[in-house]
């Protein structure tokens, strides 16, 4: 898979290769007509592997065409998958398109997939970012292209695996396997400090997820000891049912173990330090995938495992996690404010934004959860696009330093337009997608107060409350400050360009042709326009998404709620969590704990 320094391949084999790639692309499109829906999901997981395998044996100069074919085929397949799914959504927020084959019965491992609305949407997001990444790297990656695109494709498969998994090991294997492609991408194609970034990224997430595995296996053994299951199984659905019967102390430990893995991935405040480094050093495609999808693996895992497996512990610990999220939101925002590296700024803004996402999850009510899932998608679109834009700018100026750049609106109007657009989406300007999800997570947090359910009409069941929303809202202000400051410096103001780039063109570094001054080539405009259109669409008309997410999220919330309400008589201090009862109001410690926290 490795090759020497790339010379432009002789035209003839390259042309052939492009033809083969095109034929393979259309062949994969044949799967659109496949009669069984699950084959499309399996094909989406298989196509990247097959294309990557072929690519190795084709001329390196055409690797990007192979990658583009594979990812575009997957994008079309994912659209069809989504259409099929929502044409007949599973009843009661359950799973459809279920596929299960026993692989290693000795350890209860079966290759088992299934989709609910949340996973379908995240799979579609992954599929969308696939071609975006390839197009975003079109000119940036000139050497070891097969290595780059090969691992990029394998990464796609792993991400689909995470979102579609219905078996613990399928999930875990996919979750862990995402590390390797990204490690290679950052390590070989990143910028100056890439070594440290790659190793730090790998070690942080690997350490966390092994501890999460210990917690998850504990749940599996607990399930095996339950009479209603009785066998050692790794089926996520069965485990979720059995996990709730764990005693409260075990639940707390299991939740902490799981969070050790997933919070690192998100990343939550004290364990976020790998992220700015990895995002900053990664090549553009790596940053887009990291911000767009990989961080969501953490929040998705919280949604899929922490909340349903250990609802009581999550409810108990929610205030602490919320405080960590809020610290993350505000602290990362303040760090952004003083950044000079524009890529690092956007990286830190991800820490800040994902804090909202976690906050919404731990609000544990429908609006909070819906907001969080929307946040995952919207953040993927807008931050992915921002990284793309920064990458395009970097290709032209070879710097990301805000002190060296300024007033680019006069030189790169199209780029500046998109920059302003996506920053607005990221800030949460009403009318764009970021607003909807940010508002919903805050709303969910605000209303999520079990203690106020009776006295306040808007309040819902949940462990948080208005004070948390209030604290988090300061983060919104900080976000507006740092993002607009960044815009003011880089887009407006007097023109500043780094020395040697006064004409605004990139120096030709051995490529076929120099880049135009602005982002006007097709491979730059197409992904930007597509992402912008989606941002606008989901900002103006988010209703279809919200409706689509309703069944699974309502089911999730109902089951969390029943678990907590049922558990009350069993737990000695259960009175504290009583949702309705004569003593709520000032006596309900869910509220008192919260007030203690925020004071």
């Amino acid at each position, binding site marked *: *898979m*490795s090759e*020497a320094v790339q010379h432009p391949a002789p035209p003839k084999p390259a042309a052939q290769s492009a033809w083969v790639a095109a034929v393979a692309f259309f062949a994969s499109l044949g799967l659109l007509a496949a009669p069984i829906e699950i084959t499309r999901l399996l094909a989406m997981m298989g196509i990247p592997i097959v294309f990557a395998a072929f690519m190795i044996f084709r001329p390196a100069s055409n690797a990007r065409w192979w990658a583009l074919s594979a990812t575009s085929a997957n994008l079309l397949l994912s659209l069809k998958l989504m259409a099929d799914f929502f044409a007949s959504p599973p009843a009661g927020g359950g799973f459809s398109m279920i596929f299960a084959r026993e*692989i*290693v*019965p*000795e*350890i*209860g491992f079966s290759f088992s997939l299934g989709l609910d609305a949340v996973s379908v949407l995240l799979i579609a997001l992954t599929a969308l970012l696939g071609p975006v990444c390839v197009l975003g790297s079109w000119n940036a990656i000139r050497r070891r292209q097969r290595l780059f695109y090969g691992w990029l494709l394998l990464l796609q498969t792993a991400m689909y695996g995470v979102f579609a998994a219905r078996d613990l*090991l399928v999930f*875990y*294997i996919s979750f*862990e*396997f995402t*590390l*390797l492609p990204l*490690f*290679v991408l950052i*390590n*070989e194609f990143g910028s100056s400090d890439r*070594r440290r970034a*790659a*190793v730090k990224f*790998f*070690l942080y997430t*690997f*350490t966390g997820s*092994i*501890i999460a*595995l*210990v917690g998850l*296996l*504990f749940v*599996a*053994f607990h399930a*095996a*000891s*339950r*009479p209603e299951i*009785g066998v*050692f199984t790794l089926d996520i659905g069965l485990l979720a049912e059995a996990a709730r019967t764990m005693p409260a102390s075990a639940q707390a430990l299991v939740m902490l173990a799981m969070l050790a893995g997933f919070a690192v991935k998100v990343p939550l405040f004290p364990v976020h330090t790998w992220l700015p480094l990895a995002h900053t050093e990664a090549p553009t495609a790596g940053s887009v995938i990291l911000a767009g999808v990989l961080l969501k693996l953490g929040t998705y895992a919280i949604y899929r495992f922490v909340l349903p497996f250990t609802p009581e512990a999550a409810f108990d610990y929610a205030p602490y996690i919320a405080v960590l999220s809020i610290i993350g939101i505000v602290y990362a925002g303040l760090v952004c404010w003083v950044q000079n590296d524009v890529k690092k700024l956007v990286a830190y803004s991800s820490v800040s934004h994902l804090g909202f996402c976690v906050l919404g999850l731990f609000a544990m009510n429908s609006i909070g959860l819906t907001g969080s899932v929307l946040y995952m998608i919207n953040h993927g679109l807008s931050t992915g696009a921002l990284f793309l834009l920064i990458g395009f700018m970097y290709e032209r100026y070879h710097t990301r330093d805000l002190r060296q750049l300024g007033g680019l609106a006069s030189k790169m109007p199209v780029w500046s337009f998109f920059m302003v657009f996506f920053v607005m989406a990221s800030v949460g300007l009403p009318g764009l997608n970021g607003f909807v999800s940010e508002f919903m997570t805050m709303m969910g947090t605000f209303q999520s107060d079990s203690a106020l359910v009776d006295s306040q009409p808007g309040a819902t069941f949940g462990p948080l409350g208005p004070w948390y929303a209030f604290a988090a809202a300061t983060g919104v202000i900080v976000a507006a400050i740092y993002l607009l400051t960044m815009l003011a410096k880089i887009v407006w103001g007097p023109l500043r360009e780094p020395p040697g780039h006064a004409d605004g063109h990139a120096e030709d570094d051995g490529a076929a042709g120099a880049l135009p001054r602005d982002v006007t080539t097709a491979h730059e405009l197409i992904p930007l326009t597509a992402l912008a259109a989606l941002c606008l669409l989901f900002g103006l008309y988010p209703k279809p998404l919200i409706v689509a997410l309703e069944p699974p999220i309502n089911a999730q919330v109902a089951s969390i709620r029943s678990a907590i309400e049922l558990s009350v008589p069993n737990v000695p201090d259960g009175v504290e969590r009583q949702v309705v009862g004569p003593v709520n109001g000032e006596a309900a410690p869910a509220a008192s704990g919260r007030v203690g926290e925020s004071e």
Partner: protein
Amino acid sequence: MTEKLTLIAPEIALFVTTCVVMVLGLSPSLAARKMCAWISGLGLVIAAGLAVPAVLDVQTASAATGIFPSMQPYMKGLIAVVGLMLLPMMSGTVDREMETMIAAGRAKYEALRANRAEFYSFFLFSLTGLMLTVSADDLIWLFLALELTSLPTYIMVTISTRSTRSQEAGVKYFFIGALGAAVFLYGFALLYGATGSTSLAEIHRVLAAQEFGPEGGLSPIAIAGLVISLLGLGVKIAAVPMHFYVADVYQGAAAGVTAMLAFVPKAAGFVAIILLAGAVGWGHEAEPRQLPDALHWTLWILAAATMTAGNVLAALQSSVKRMLAYSSIAHSGYMLAGVMAGPGERGFFDDGIAAVLFYLLCYGVMNVGAFAVLAAIERRDGRETDEIDDIRGLHRRHPHLAAAMLLCSLSLLGLPPLLGFFGKLGLFTAVISTGTADMYALAVVLGINSAIAAFYYLRLVMAAYIDAPDEAREAELEPVARPTRTIAAMVSAGGVVVLLAVVGPLMGFSLEAAGFSSELDGAGFEAGRGAQLEPETPTPAPSPEAD
């Protein structure tokens, strides 16, 4: 008696091959000398052929005596297969200069100066000893088999290269090994004193009677004997603090021999520990699924210290051999955790012994590859490549070797979905299945250690697969890789991937291999274990007399 002979048929086949090779290697004819490796391979194939079908044949297995009777076919098959993988790494290790001189007509063949015969025959002797260790049902047999495994390796280390480093390594290894042997022999003697028998099955019965009889516990002499034997065997598996020799010895020996050292004595040590632990039994009065306290805590400390020290020290090395040496210490620590978990009742996922046996398989397969890559590239001055800078940028000139390094390192690190991950997963599930707080803690230690291991295995991956080559270094290396060692690396890397397809059956075999002797089952220790494991099942716990 004849049954026993059929059971040790693989050993006999290997022994016969050993004798043939020993004579053949001294032949003045080059063609005959060159046959050594091929005949060794043939002998290993025959041994595997005699052992492996028995894996499927439970009848043969049950004819075996001893406490883990079914372990024999599985382990012997594994040993033969790993031996076959090691063989291509052995070729060309000794006598190369001499053979070149003879070929150039500058020297004549001298049987006294040639090492080929000893080298191959001692390799096979060591494997024979390992197989005999597996067959052991008696302390004396066990001791002799362990010594037969180790003694040839001392000589192999010494003659493997011509540098004084190898001689130093050999002497060091010999003294430490002898010390270890003395210690566990002393432990065996105490055990004999406490139980009045050298038969493992008899020891099991006597210890069970002590534990559950009127004495209300194991006799102090038995406990002392067990702990001392364990510490002595710790030298074989390189458990901390008996690990001091490892780095120097591994670095001093040729890479092929090092790869062997990382598997053969270690496997022997683990088999011996499993047999001893099996003789005590994992049933215990206070904790139904735990070794007696003294052993349990000794092992706990050994396991935690071994994996932590191994990994931390490995992370500090710049010599690849030393790094892999310390990492092999860490792998011993992982497997000790599996031994502590002990046999389970429900399947592979809660059987610590099966997990250890399966991990030995995974380790045997993936470990060869890392050393083989190192052995395949040579320096122009004839010294072995050892520094991490030597393999930097390997992907430029030897892409397949770089890919092999990638796969083997990642598998050793336990990255899913490679083979090493499933090995480690088995250990994790077994440790967690015991359901005690100290074992959960050990599982977390294991997890953290896997992460530390990631740090240095990633360095190997980066150096070989990603980094640009160091031009100055590259000029010192031979441009062509050694073909046989390349094959070994490819086979190992292929195994890491291909064996995934049969992970389930392999786990099934290892589970079968870990089956406790049915004759001894119910001797007292297993009492109540079923009840403990499944506390909420409606079926009543079997009484000790029931089976």
